[in-house]
């Protein structure tokens, strides 16, 4: 039961940690994992991705186009950018809040994400949209978007582990004072 997972978004959204948690959940289940992600200069405000592969007979950490079982997109335009990686029948989970690039401010462009969401809805069969901002507000912190996205991905049933596995992994990977808030975010729709 191999799974190809792709996380994408903008630097600073907590994608790398989400990738780590997903990997450590799979590790715990004794599965083989490989992953690769954007590192370094591109991280701050740039497009960030993380490829994750779980299962048997995988040779390299990144996979080709049309091979992702699930794309977890933290930003609408980044979802569109990585859409060519989604396999036929794959699922895409997308946070609806757009993030302006600096270039948009300079060019005074009016990128607002709607066009991207329309595109995604038109060309994908299994799309789950998440109003991450709203859930963050309900939970009282803008910093739990990554937990909310992971929570949605687990709820979709595509990831081979449970929300309890994710909570357990989170406890080993975040500072003590943030555990309670993160657990609340992970369990918010369970």
């Amino acid at each position, binding site marked *: 039961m191999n799974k190809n997972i792709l996380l994408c978004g903008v630097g600073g959204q907590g994608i790398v940690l989400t990738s780590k948690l997903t990997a450590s959940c799979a590790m715990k289940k004794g*599965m083989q994992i*490989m992953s690769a992600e954007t*590192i*370094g200069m591109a991280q701050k405000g740039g497009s960030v991705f993380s490829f994750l592969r779980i299962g048997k007979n995988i040779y390299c950490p990144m996979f080709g186009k049309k091979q992702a079982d699930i794309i977890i997109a933290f930003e609408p335009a980044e979802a*569109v950018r990585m859409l060519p990686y989604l396999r036929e029948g794959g699922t895409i989970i997308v946070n609806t809040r757009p993030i302006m*690039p600096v*270039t*948009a401010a300079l060019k005074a462009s009016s990128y607002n994400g709607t066009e991207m969401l329309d595109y995604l809805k038109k060309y994908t069969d299994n799309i789950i949209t998440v109003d991450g901002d709203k859930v963050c507000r309900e939970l009282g912190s803008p910093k739990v978007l990554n937990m909310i996205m992971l929570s949605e991905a687990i709820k979709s049933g595509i990831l081979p582990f449970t929300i309890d596995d994710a909570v357990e992994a989170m406890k080993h990977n975040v500072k003590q004072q943030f555990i309670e808030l993160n657990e609340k975010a992970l369990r918010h729709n369970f």
Partner: protein
Amino acid sequence: MHKEFLMGNAAISRGAVAAGLNVISGYPGTPSTEVLETTAKINNGSIYVEWSVNEKAALELGAGAAYCGARSMVTMKQVGLNVASDPLMSLAYIGVKGGMVIMVADDPGPISSQTEQDTRHFAAFSKLPCFDPSSVQEAYDMIQEAFEYSEEYHTPVLFRPTTRVCHGYASIDVKDESEYIKNIPEGFVKDSSKWVIFPRLSYNAHLNIEKRNSELSDIFSEYKRNMIIPPSDTSCHKGIASHGISFTYVQEAFTDKDAPKILKISTPFPFPEKLAVEFLNGLDEVLCIEELDPVIERELTYVCGKYHLSTKIIGKLTGNVKNAGENTCDSVADNIAEFMEWDKKINSDIPTTPELPVRPPVLCAGCPHRASFYAVKQAMKGKKSVFCGDIGCYTLGNAMPLDMVDTCLCMGAGVNITQGIGKIEPDTSCFAFVGDSTFFASAITGVVNAVYNQADMTLIVLDNSTTAMTGHQPHPGTGRTMMGQIVDKVNIEAVLRGIGLKTVETVNPLELDKAIDTVKRISAEKGVKSIIFKSPCAVLIKSQKPFVIDSNKCINCKKCINSLGCPGIIISDSNVRIDESLCTGCGLCSQVCPVNAIGGEQNE
């Protein structure tokens, strides 16, 4: 043995520690940095860990330790080896006593480098054995074997992973601490006929090196990581030769198809010639899938000539594989489909996307470099000037709207490029911008050269008290070491005065008016003079309260956006707004606003 989920660079570090590492030194550079950082993190105090001032110093230190029988590792990125090439070339003749591995990470793409140079050439040039791992697990195992070979043959060896191995993660088998080798160095044994390089020694060493490498070629033909994978379709007379991460892309391409004969090369130098002959036997055509340069392709072509084989070798040299950039699963699958004459895949039917926002890397919100560049730009407005940049975060000062980097070449080059431009264009105000880490790494000698040879230029040192670009490593100006000591800082201003600069002033660039005045005043002086713009990296300090724009005062002129390009200032519903989640409260924009609409707490 147990399983761990590790980054390639962490695996390399862990492997080296398991092999009895005593000393590790290096200079940070993507994608190599995490090897040394991981070692510092897991160090129980028995390993000497150092971020050296540059790669040359690091390699010399590693050599000295290996002379004593220590196992040493030196880490750098590919362009770092250019800096370390002087000691490297000579050390190849002298050799070592303890195992010494020079870990040089190559960067196909390039993703974060100036060049796509291939360290496998450096191996052949310096005549040093080279190891090229293809996965995280293999990197872990191979680094330990590299130490064994190095010690057995008394020679430093190169270990050359590429970005996707360095920064890939995998769950791998690692040794328990009880299985680690413990290496106790014997100490330095004096022998001037061995450790002092002279022409006579070099002549003899050269003979020995050639003899050894010829033997190593045979030994590497038996090395288990160089291998021939027999074809699943025995009627196929085609073959594929590959290496590194590209080898795994080749494996992926054949997961659900019959594979031809495959050759995997893990020691590009000395090339395992016997194994190559065995591979080529019976093949009509071989496709070489490589990243960076066609090293294997040339070797196989040579082997075909030497042994009168009629096998056709194709790859980059024949235009079948692209000559630049990194390979991907998809690009390799395409190369293989064409070679195997598979039916063409129907092209991706993904419809045209809406215009996607471009997200180039930019200086962070609150970055003091933005203020420094803006101050110089304002001070020199309308005057003929040239701004020579250097390597670091501040290379990003080239982006619009700052547009303040006219040249950038390699570490420390900006100082003497500025000198050269000034010699040809004496009527131009010439500026060299250099960061603090780059200053220590390789700009000091350039300043000596410029001062002594009567250059006219302004040296701007952008001192954010860290090596920011590669993830905040300490350097001689920071006052801490990788062994956790707090030490005396090397003072940049004192260094410059010691060299002989009469004018050196240190200014906080975030005090904009003062910064502009200082540039105006000092740049008008003759000779080499310097301004040190000192303000800590915004990522390392606690942010101040975010600033806010008073919408009643804002006239929507967008001067803040168009002159600074700070990611913290955005347009939302046609109004200029500050993104509180990004703003660090540096206050630069408030000093640029013509109507004082931007303020700190007083606006609340």
